[in-house]
């Protein structure tokens, strides 16, 4: 076990947490949703985000043991567990992004550290630094085509792929967990700007904001 001191960034539910989009008035927009939306935008707030860094072989063993999925070694690969709630994405040859449901990040970090022991690695909890916005609906790809220079054609961007790229003149991680959904991992400081961009870009296709599950 490495001697890094850990702390739970969200120890109790008593302290109210705020998503980066807390001031973006998603509720207000949700009330004015069009009858048959072409795009539906939904924020996946308060997920646990961990950055894993280290050698692929060392990390792969620990990740298999703790999460039950293998580490994606191929560039741009995104792997989900059976429930689809936990994911690991390749970010660079020695860096991966793990996203897990709310409340799991701290215990996951502990279990990974236990599994990795004295190996050469780094795990950073970046849950507070970014948020996930999900786009779905038949026109979601049209909105993305207006916003990013990356080729989002299904032939080039199949489900199970994710890339870090320029998005709306900012940067974002764009990923496609399954055929019907696109996820944007937005940095905290860009979140409101990107949300407003998406609302503007999605206007012509009938963008609905959904705040429920």
């Amino acid at each position, binding site marked *: 076990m490495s001697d890094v001191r850990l702390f739970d960034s969200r120890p109790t539910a008593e302290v109210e947490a705020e998503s980066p989009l807390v001031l973006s008035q998603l509720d207000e927009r949700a009330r004015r949703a069009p009858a048959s939306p072409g795009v539906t935008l939904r924020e996946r707030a308060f997920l646990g985000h961990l950055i894993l860094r280290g050698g692929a072989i060392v990390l792969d063993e620990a990740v298999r043991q703790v999460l039950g999925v293998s580490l994606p070694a191929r*560039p*741009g690969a995104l792997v989900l567990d059976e429930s689809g709630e936990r994911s690991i994405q390749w*970010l*660079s*040859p020695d860096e991966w992004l793990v996203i897990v449901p709310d409340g799991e990040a701290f215990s996951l970090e502990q279990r990974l550290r236990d599994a990795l022991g004295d190996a050469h690695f780094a795990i950073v909890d970046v849950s507070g630094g970014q948020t996930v916005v999900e786009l779905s609906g038949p026109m979601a790809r049209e909105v993305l085509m207006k916003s990013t220079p990356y080729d989002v054609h299904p032939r080039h961007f199949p489900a199970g792929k994710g890339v*870090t*790229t*320029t998005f709306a003149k900012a*940067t974002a991680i764009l990923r496609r967990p399954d055929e019907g959904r696109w996820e944007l991992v937005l940095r905290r400081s860009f979140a409101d700007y990107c949300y407003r961009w998406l609302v503007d870009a999605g206007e012509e296709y009938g963008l609905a904001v959904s705040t429920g599950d």
Partner: protein
Amino acid sequence: MFHIYCPYCEEHREEEEFHPKGQAHIARPADPDACSDAEWGDYLFFRDNPRGIHHELWVHAVGCRKFFNITRHTVTYEILETYRMGEQPTITAESLAREEKADKVQVADGGQQTVGASDAALASMKGAQA
């Protein structure tokens, strides 16, 4: 507005994701205390400005954030190859000059630059790459 192949992401990405970082293959003197002022100044400040083949360091700033090398032609701006850190280029001014076998091609020290390599030589090198 062109695409650059990132050897780490293994696909072509938009140019705006990248940032140039100057000349590649500049080795820091192994013992800075022992080297002369001229050697240190050369390492620190002096860079090639070739007309022709140039090996450059670039960073995929928005993508994987890895540094890599690009072999670029400074006249045509054509990117001849990209390769990872620690690797050596397969296309150099010398290799082009060999291809050319012509007197008009001058190769500077270290084979890092050339003058007057014809388009035909470049094209045949690219053909050999593909």
